[in-house]
């Protein structure tokens, strides 16, 4: 070109960014003044966008300075790209400042700010901003904004907020949009409503790799391994090629539903069938799968053969082996797994607690005590158990043994005691499977286990949520064996359904049994 002008420079910069060479775009921008070509709003937003892709906040800030210098600081397009760039570089303070200083905003600028909050784990701020947008602006939300808000609800696990957003989606006419539908399916699954999730998924006209993979993983987390496998076969029939993430989902499904042989077949054929090379994460799933089934020696042998690039990769692997060996009383493997974790400084608190618990199970109170002392010396603390329940638009949190801060505490305790008695009539023995950490008399053991956070949460839910609605409880740790038994019995006594999400998966309690088939 004889005399390239602003437009040609801008187009070239845009081209480089689109061709995944954003650093060239930034380089070109730096060359503009020397060539006496001045940027306009589009140039500036293009180069800011390039900085966004590079996640280079330093360069972004330099360009921001130019934005101010050239007087584009109130331009809608430039500001939206600045908000986006700061959001992607995790500088939410700057993003919000730019946003607040905007004289005029449109749906794109609001969406950039909401996305910034959502992607930086500030879901509540994202929802708050969406509420403000609905209040202040005449423009309707578009599909991008709505899917972002739905994703925020999913990450917070807030089903009610997700449903409110779903209503907006329907009313704004975006129910059939693929991106929104995928987000809705994911939200329902993450909030414990797999049925609704599947309902949304089945209505999608063109399910793609992402939606299938997401559903496979969701079904896995709900213990519905067969559903995962059906979806997997369906997607292959449709000609969609699974990726490493899809395989991770399907192996996780097999692991959590006891489908060991299917899982092994998948592991051994994934490379040949779809060119996916199994990596540490896949092997971890298989070790976990074998371990849960009690095939500890196979699991152990497999774990030993896996090459780890760094210690954090081994954390889940040896953690899985530790859990499984605890479950099946293999003290030898548990000891080695704990040792590995402690030495590699991964999941140290879990390792120490596990070792302590194993000694408890086998009656070695002294060994358990010495580990507890070691934990104190080293400064390791077990994360306290806590559960929470969402009722309408409030969240109620419960801590183990903490009755004083439990809302309607006396009523809850009375109900739990009453249920205890009814369970005992059916042969329930409290405290026998729960993991207790101190050497106490049998009766006190029963007292301690009975007040695990999920029990308090359940008691409160039974008196606060009307019959007919499923009770949903979220817990931060793995549900203990005793509470699991109790929940099964209670579900048949009171004739209600409960869904409990613990650190690993979802448990659906109904009519005296659990969807995990006691296999978690």
């Amino acid at each position, binding site marked *: 070109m004889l005399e390239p002008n602003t437009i040609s420079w801008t187009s070239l910069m845009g081209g480089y960014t689109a061709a995944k060479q954003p650093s060239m775009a930034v380089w070109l921008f730096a060359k503009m003044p020397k060539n006496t070509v001045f940027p306009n709003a589009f140039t500036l937003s293009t180069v800011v966008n390039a900085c966004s892709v590079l996640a280079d906040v330093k360069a972004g800030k330099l360009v921001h300075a130019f934005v101010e210098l050239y007087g584009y600081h109130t331009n809608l397009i430039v500001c939206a790209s600045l908000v986006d760039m700061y959001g992607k570089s995790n500088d939410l303070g700057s993003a919000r400042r730019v946003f607040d200083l905007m004289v005029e905003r449109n749906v794109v600028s609001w969406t950039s700010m909401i996305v910034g909050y959502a992607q930086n784990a500030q879901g509540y701020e994202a*929802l708050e901003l*969406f*509420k403000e947008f*609905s*209040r202040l602006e005449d423009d*309707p939300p578009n599909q991008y904004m709505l899917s972002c808000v739905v994703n925020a609800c999913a990450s917070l696990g807030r089903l*009610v*907020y997700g*449903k*409110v957003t*779903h*209503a*907006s989606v*329907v*009313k*704004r*006419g975006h*129910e059939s949009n693929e991106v929104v539908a995928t987000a809705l399916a994911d939200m329902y699954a993450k909030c414990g409503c797999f049925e609704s999730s599947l*309902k949304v998924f089945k209505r999608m006209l063109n399910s793609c790799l992402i939606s299938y993979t997401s559903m496979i993983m969701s079904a896995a987390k709900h213990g519905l391994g067969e559903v995962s496998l059906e979806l997997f076969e369906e997607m292959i029939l449709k000609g969609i090629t699974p990726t490493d993430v899809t395989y991770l989902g399907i192996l996780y499904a097999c692991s959590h539903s006891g489908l060991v042989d299917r899982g092994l077949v998948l592991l051994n054929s994934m490379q040949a069938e779809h060119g996916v090379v199994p990596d540490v994460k896949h092997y971890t799933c298989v070790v976990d799968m074998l371990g849960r089934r009690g095939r500890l020696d196979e699991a152990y042998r497999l774990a030993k053969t896996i090459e780890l690039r760094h210690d954090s990769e081994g954390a889940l692997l040896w953690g899985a082996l530790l859990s499984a060996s605890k479950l099946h009383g293999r003290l030898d493997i548990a000891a080695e797994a704990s040792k590995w974790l402690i030495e590699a400084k991964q999941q140290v608190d879990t390792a120490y607690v596990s070792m302590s618990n194993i000694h408890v199970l086998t009656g070695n109170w002294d060994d358990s005590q010495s580990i507890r002392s070691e934990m104190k010396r080293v400064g390791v603390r077990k994360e306290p158990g806590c559960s929470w329940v969402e009722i*309408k*638009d409030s969240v109620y949190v419960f801590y183990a043994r903490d009755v004083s801060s439990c809302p309607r505490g006396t009523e809850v305790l009375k109900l739990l005691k009453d249920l205890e008695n009814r369970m005992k009539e059916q042969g329930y023995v409290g405290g026998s499977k729960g993991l207790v950490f101190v050497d106490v008399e049998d009766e006190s053991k029963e007292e301690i286990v009975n007040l695990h956070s999920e029990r308090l949460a359940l008691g409160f839910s039974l008196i606060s949520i*009307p019959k*007919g*609605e499923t009770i949903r409880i979220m817990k931060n740790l793995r549900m203990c064996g005793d509470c699991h038994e109790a929940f099964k019995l209670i579900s048949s006594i009171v004739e209600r359904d409960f869904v409990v999400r613990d650190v690993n998966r979802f448990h659906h309690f109904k009519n005296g049994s659990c969807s995990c088939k006691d296999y978690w």
Partner: protein
Amino acid sequence: MLEGCDFEHWLVVVEPPDPQLTRDDIIDVYIKTLARIIGSEEEARMKIYSVSTRHYFAFGALVSEELSYKLKELPNVRWVLPDSYMDVKNKTYAVHKYGINFSNPVPTKPNQKSLNKGIVALEMKSLV
């Protein structure tokens, strides 16, 4: 969470009805659907505060949370979702612009006077 969200206003999304049906027929289906839970068609007419029969098939029902769970179980009901204002400034649950047939500004505390106002609006707009 959003303005107007009080867990008494519910958006009831139904399965798309027979394409041959007229708008009035569809509204009749809505009334009959709600009547199955509430008891009578008269009651149902009073409790429906908005309908949509074109771009999506749904109606707004003013019922308790407990009744909303019963609605969910009906075979032609796809979703029962907490409703909120579409137009926050005017506090309405439906908006005229997007092909939605009519809207009924609902008072925050429903009483007989405002319900009667609603019935009149319903009758004037379409249900004759």
